[in-house]
């Protein structure tokens, strides 16, 4: 077994230098401290993303992206195709789980200050990936073409359209027209299975490459403890120790997904009818709820700006700050934790949680 491995490695090495890659991976280590548990989250998110790709490809075998057929094809998958219910429910549940773990991963990186030099690009690519994931969620939500998804898309694209200047163009671009129609479905399908996966692949490759090159970050508190001699630096080899631990996480995620899919299968809903009145209580998916609820609370006018626009402006500014945190948090480059940024992070989490809870009431 070992000689086969050696032989294959040599063969590949003679052709594209696989030897140095293998060497690198073999010697790669992961720092161990009391915060290490958070470092599994990136891997779990990646694992769930791979699940999405695999189940998504399987769904592609039967799904039809036209208004006449979309709902029926999903119904077909749920009722006629063997284990179709499983594939579809896993895909829907995993989407939600993945975005959840992506958020937790992002916040853990934030609070552990892993975005500081030299990992600014990792942070940047990561935030962009988060936006892409939310784009996946938004575009994928329309595809079953049921009442909830139709009207949630209507509301969501309406919000995009209220941005002055580019708003009108953006609305037409997203919807493929003035209203949400079959053209929207075609477009969202294209985004969901081609455009976003393409972008995600590029950014993911960049993100993973950077993580491999730069290794796992050690939190400032631990670095300080080590520098002051209060703690010894510990690490474990990536392969096989960290990887085996990673796999425990993946298996746990699989178990949760399987349980959810079997006991709480994703519902079909009723076929979308553009001419029916919107049912009461339409809301977007949970990861958009905090924005949705905030916009609801804003008054019609703030100073001289229209309320909704001011809200979107606020979110845009907040997103810009968040993206640029590695460059704004100057003192962290010197290893000094600024309470302001920690406080900001806690505020943001609190804001998201409280507003999402309010939206669900």
């Amino acid at each position, binding site marked *: 077994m070992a000689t086969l491995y050696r032989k294959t490695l040599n063969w590949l090495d003679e052709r594209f230098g696989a030897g140095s890659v293998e060497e690198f991976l073999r010697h790669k280590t992961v720092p161990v401290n009391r915060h290490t548990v958070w470092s599994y989250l990136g891997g779990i998110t990646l694992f769930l993303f791979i699940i999405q790709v695999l189940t998504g490809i399987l769904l592609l075998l039967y799904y039809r992206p036209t208004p006449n057929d979309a709902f*029926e094809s999903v119904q077909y998958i749920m009722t*006629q195709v063997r284990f179709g219910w499983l594939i579809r429910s896993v895909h829907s549940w995993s989407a939600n789980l993945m975005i959840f773990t992506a958020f937790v991963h992002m916040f853990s990186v934030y609070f552990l200050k892993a975005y500081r030099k030299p990992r600014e690009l990792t942070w940047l690519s990561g935030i962009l990936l988060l936006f892409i994931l939310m784009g996946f969620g938004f575009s994928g939500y329309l595809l079953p073409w049921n009442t909830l998804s139709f009207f949630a898309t209507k509301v969501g694209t309406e919000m995009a359209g209220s941005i002055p200047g580019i708003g009108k163009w953006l609305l037409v671009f997203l919807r493929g027209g003035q209203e949400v129609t079959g053209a929207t479905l075609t477009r969202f399908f294209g985004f969901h299975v081609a455009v976003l996966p393409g972008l995600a692949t590029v950014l993911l490759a960049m993100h993973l490459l950077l993580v491999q090159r730069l290794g796992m970050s050690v939190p400032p508190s631990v670095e300080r403890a080590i520098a002051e001699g209060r703690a010894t630096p510990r690490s474990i080899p990536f392969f096989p120790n960290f990887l085996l631990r990673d796999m425990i996480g993946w298996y746990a995620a699989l178990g949760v997904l399987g349980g959810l899919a079997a006991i709480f299968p994703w519902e079909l809903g009723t076929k979308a009818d553009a001419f029916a009145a919107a049912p009461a209580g339409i809301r977007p998916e949970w990861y958009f709820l905090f924005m949705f609820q905030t916009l609801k609370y804003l008054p019609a006018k703030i100073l001289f700006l229209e309320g909704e626009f001011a809200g979107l402006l606020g979110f845009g500014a907040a997103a810009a700050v968040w993206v640029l945190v590695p460059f704004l948090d100057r003192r962290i480059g010197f290893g000094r934790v600024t309470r302001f940024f920690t406080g900001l992070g806690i505020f943001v989490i609190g804001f998201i949680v409280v507003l999402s809870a309010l939206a669900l009431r």
Partner: protein
Amino acid sequence: METADPTPRGTVQPGRRWVNLLLGSGVVASIISFIYPAMRYIIPPPVTESSSRFVVAAKVGELKNNSGKIFKFGSRPAILVRLVDGSYRAFSAVCTHLSCTVQYRSDLHEIWCACHNGLYDLEGRNVSGPPPRPLESYEVHIQGEDVVVTRTT
């Protein structure tokens, strides 16, 4: 931290074997429990189209001239009528008045609703009684031995 490896290379400790076995079987079992559904999934089911767009309503020769048959189309009943001249018509069998299921009357050569005496002609138009709208009409094609009814919208 250096300790001599107590076991000579080449022999596997009993404890280690059990762990490897456990790990190996767990991983293999879990992989099978994922691969098996995926394999079954990619094999298309016997009915390749969802039945909401087209349906085989009857076999050629099953319906005599001047008779009708109720069949299921998607989630609603539909009616297949064979005219006196042998041609076929198909409509939704849901009466547009109060949703009773209509039937073909060979004595009247029209489609009749028993609930409140509504009548539709052989183009599905509401010609008498309470129904306010015509019956939704479908296309009929003969495909070999099958009389196939399709919905265009």
